[in-house]
């Protein structure tokens, strides 16, 4: 197969597979945060802050995969 085709395929697979687990992780995080806020609405700001921090960490993993995909596609 020619290089351009394999490059496109590699970039697609990189981001496709790399975004699956962080998506699941963020879903679990947000679900637990919703549960916690539901049980204790007064602590909502604290829970929200910790949730945003944790979501940023997990999203970073997906961003790593995206960066690799962009490197493959554009160089």
């Amino acid at each position, binding site marked *: 197969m020619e290089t351009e085709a394999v490059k496109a395929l590699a970039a697609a697979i990189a981001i496709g597979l790399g975004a699956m687990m962080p998506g699941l992780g963020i879903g679990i995080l947000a679900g637990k945060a919703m549960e916690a806020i539901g049980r204790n609405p007064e602590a909502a700001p*604290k829970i929200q802050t910790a949730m*945003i921090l944790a979501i940023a960490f997990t999203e*970073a993993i997906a961003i*790593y995969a995206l960066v690799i995909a*962009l490197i493959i596609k*554009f160089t």
Partner: protein
Amino acid sequence: MNISFLPENLIRIQGWPITNTLIMAWFAMTFLIVFSGFVTRRLREVPGKVQCLVEMFIEEMVSFMTTVTGDKEKTKRFFPLVATFFLFILISNWIGILPGVGSVGIKHQETIIPLMRSMNSDLNMTLALGIISVIAVQIFGITTVGFFKHASHFISFKSPINFFIGVLEIISEMAKVISFSFRLFGNIFAGEVLLASMFFLVPLFIPLPFLFLEIFVGFIQALVFSMLTLVFLTVATSKNH
């Protein structure tokens, strides 16, 4: 559509390359310096509108930081660094969405080199910010708890397990630099690519939700960068690790 991973050199001054992201960094710096000079020129006891806004922002930032550090004295020490990170990254992310950034450029061998490009879409910039953040954490740790106590987190001979944990901590510091830089770079660069694609496909109305997304992402990334720096600072300067 011109998407290039590396920032484009515009001119060279005495051998130093001036990239389009550097020009945007200068714009963000100039805006912040001029704005703060303008606001603090005549501080009044009963504040006018602009001074009121700035005071609101500072109050909000201090109360938010105090919930993380738990101590007002620590907040005062860390406020300059953390608030500067926040404002600098926020302003540069937001002016990277303005019309003309990334589209107006010089024609060069069948492609157009944009004159301005979002500052954090340059891995050099985000790597520099990440290195500054990690080194600042080390410096604050050393000046607060002393050199030997701070170094004992990384090199300790109390037991084999502690030694191993120390080695892992050193590797974790390197990972923090990589993580900081790639998180910010990936978000902003991917946002630029997304906006370029959307404007290329359907120039009217469809890019609106993506512009809102970029505004939101710019704010969240500035918040996350400064909040993570604050968390690491708090951990490094706590008396009992």
